[in-house]
């Protein structure tokens, strides 16, 4: 009885804290400006099904895709077992779903195979990161917490799966020993194709076995709750956010950049021959939008969702031509910087009730050197498995630097002047535009 009450309390606290953190993430994402991504619902849904459920883009790299698929399927399917664990925990039952008979055995058996495959995959992932040291996991932005985070997730999964198998092994042995409520009249319940190999390792004393079984059971469910609450602090948040993120992702053509509404108004005014340049703005009650982005508040909320969804896999950086030629720009770092700054702003709000100017901005995280190195080639966008668009952030910051601070590199200022004066990025006269016809 105490166990049941304790279990229910732990479950409620775990779920409650998780929900409050998700609400915090949603609040932070909503700090962004409006995004107009409510169109093409069918196409967006299809995108989500293919890219989030189906992990289509992962398969550009088959080896990690396969390993990731195992962990993903393992995660989803083995979690069916959690339903039983929760019911058993609350009502003090044991293997409540075993009435399903043969199907139940099939399920438990498959969970065991999957759990083993997950352990294998996760181990290979760990080797890739820590022994083979794949290049994309070694970038400067991966030092410190991001590296720890990635490894922690792998340890979590290993430990959870081991607990699951240990629990089954002890349960199986207790069933064989016909011990207490572990004994089922109908014979062995569940199928233990993997954990039965642990039979001989486990002690023969039923009391110790119960201790191991209960220990593993509690460890497994508490581990899951801890992991659930770890998500918000981790790149692992993508297991939830990949779904909305792929739904709201930019639709092709990738080379299309939206036209800034705030600029449209100004240009319309300038092009209007009847506009009186000296007239006072009539009903300009609200402050005009800042051009481009200086801080996370200036980014569209979808860009902020992108940042929370980033898995830090580094495929974007791996294909970035600027990064591959040794420049400082790393699209992954751009996404991580947005998330870090957003978290900082969120904590500021938590502490003060509303955002109090901290004298900082996104530009304290992202340097101009990074921003100006982008060729806008869209390789990073094409590559991202969760359909993030680091380009959106880069262009928004460029817009701020150029239109609010006039801080473009000097050659680009020359280019702008040329376009303004003679309608070409170079200093050629517009009058010479047709010379090519008669030249040899």
């Amino acid at each position: 009885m105490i166990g049941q009450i304790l279990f229910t309390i732990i479950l409620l606290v775990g779920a409650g804290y998780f929900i409050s953190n998700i609400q915090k993430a949603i609040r932070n994402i909503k700090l962004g400006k409006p995004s107009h991504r409510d169109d093409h619902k069918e196409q967006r849904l299809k995108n989500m099904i293919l890219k989030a459920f189906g992990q289509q883009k992962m398969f550009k790299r088959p080896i990690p895709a396969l390993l990731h698929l195992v962990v993903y399927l393992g995660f989803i399917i083995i979690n069916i077992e959690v339903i039983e664990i929760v019911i058993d925990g609350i009502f003090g039952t044991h293997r409540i779903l075993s009435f399903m008979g043969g199907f139940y055995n099939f399920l438990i058996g498959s969970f065991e195979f999957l759990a083993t495959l997950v352990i294998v995959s996760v181990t290979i992932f760990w080797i890739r990161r820590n022994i083979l040291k794949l290049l994309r996991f070694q970038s400067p932005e991966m030092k410190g917490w991001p590296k720890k985070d990635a490894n922690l997730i792998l340890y979590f999964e290993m430990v959870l799966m081991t607990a699951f198998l240990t629990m089954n092994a002890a349960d199986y042995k207790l069933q064989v020993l016909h011990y207490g409520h572990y004994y089922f009249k109908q014979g062995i319940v569940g199928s233990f194709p993997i954990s039965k190999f642990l039979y001989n390792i486990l002690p023969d004393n039923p009391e110790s076995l119960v201790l191991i079984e209960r220990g593993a059971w509690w460890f497994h469910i508490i581990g899951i709750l801890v992991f659930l609450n770890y998500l918000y602090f981790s790149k692992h948040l993508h297991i939830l956010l990949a779904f909305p993120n792929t739904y709201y992702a930019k639709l092709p053509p990738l080379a299309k950049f939206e036209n800034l509404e705030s600029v449209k108004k100004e240009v319309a005014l300038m092009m209007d021959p009847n506009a009186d340049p000296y007239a006072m703005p009539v009903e300009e009650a609200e402050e005009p939008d800042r051009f481009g982005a200086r801080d996370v508040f200036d980014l569209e909320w979808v860009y902020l969702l992108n940042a929370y969804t980033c898995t830090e896999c580094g495929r974007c950086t791996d294909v970035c031509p600027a990064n591959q030629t040794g420049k400082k720009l790393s699209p992954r770092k751009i996404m991580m910087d947005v998330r870090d700054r957003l978290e900082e702003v969120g904590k500021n709000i938590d502490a003060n009730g509303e955002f109090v100017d901290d004298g900082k901005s996104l530009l304290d995280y992202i340097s101009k050197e990074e921003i100006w190195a982008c060729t806008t080639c869209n390789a990073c966008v094409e590559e991202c498995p969760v359909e993030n668009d680091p380009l959106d952030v880069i262009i928004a910051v460029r817009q701020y630097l150029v239109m609010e601070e006039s801080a473009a590199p000097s050659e680009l200022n020359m280019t702008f002047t040329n376009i303004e004066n003679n309608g070409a990025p170079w200093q050629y006269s517009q009058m010479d535009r047709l010379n090519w016809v008669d030249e040899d």
Partner: protein
Amino acid sequence: MSEKIKVRTMAELAAEGKEPEILFWVGCAGSFDDRAKKITKAFAKLLNKANVDFAVLGTEESCTGDPAKRAGNEFLFQMQAATNIEVMNSYNVKKIVTTCPHCYNTFKNEYPDLGGKYEVYHHTELLQSLLQEGKLKVEGGAYKGIDITYHDPCYLGRGNGQYEAPREVLHQLEIDIKEMKHHKENSVCCGAGGAQMFKEAEPQKEEIFVFRTREALETNPKVIATACAFCNTMITDGVKFFNKEQDVKVLDIAEILEQGIKED
């Protein structure tokens, strides 16, 4: 250059009360860059040969604003767009063809929202359909059987999903394309986009064009084909960097096709 290229301007035609079927937007590189002008000429000759009813804006043409937009100067971009749209709408332009993937992208994707709605073609798309319709006929051609690799311009390929038109033109010429390790949606940028063409690179190990050209040269091509004047500049620089300019030519799809056209 024995044959004279026949090019009319929109203004000349308008004075005669005529409207051409399609506007050939030459673009800044195509108008001013010595290398790119050759591409412009090759394409204009092809248009002549196919009897396409076209005209250019000539001195009324201006920058589309692409480099300004990619560099964050949205204001300048929209000013350029407004001016260009005013000019094109005054001539009642319905269709545009351009040899520049950057101009192509702005017309196709960014001008409609600002009041400029046109049917937009990249020159490789138009050439593909002229070949299909039999308005251009190929014979053997100077490049038949020669090893050619094709570099996808970002703003045509990954940016707008057009991978096939340029390849189809090369296939018509019975050229087997030797694809680079990274091609189509995985293609690597030449280094010019996003206004990089007009500025010095940030501190780096090597230039992007060197990086990309190295991969192109790994296919041992006689010709590196591309479909963008800026890519052409960058990869030409790359070929020079590797001291291969005697062995490897960098050519536009239009130039390659122009060498393989059957004369009537």
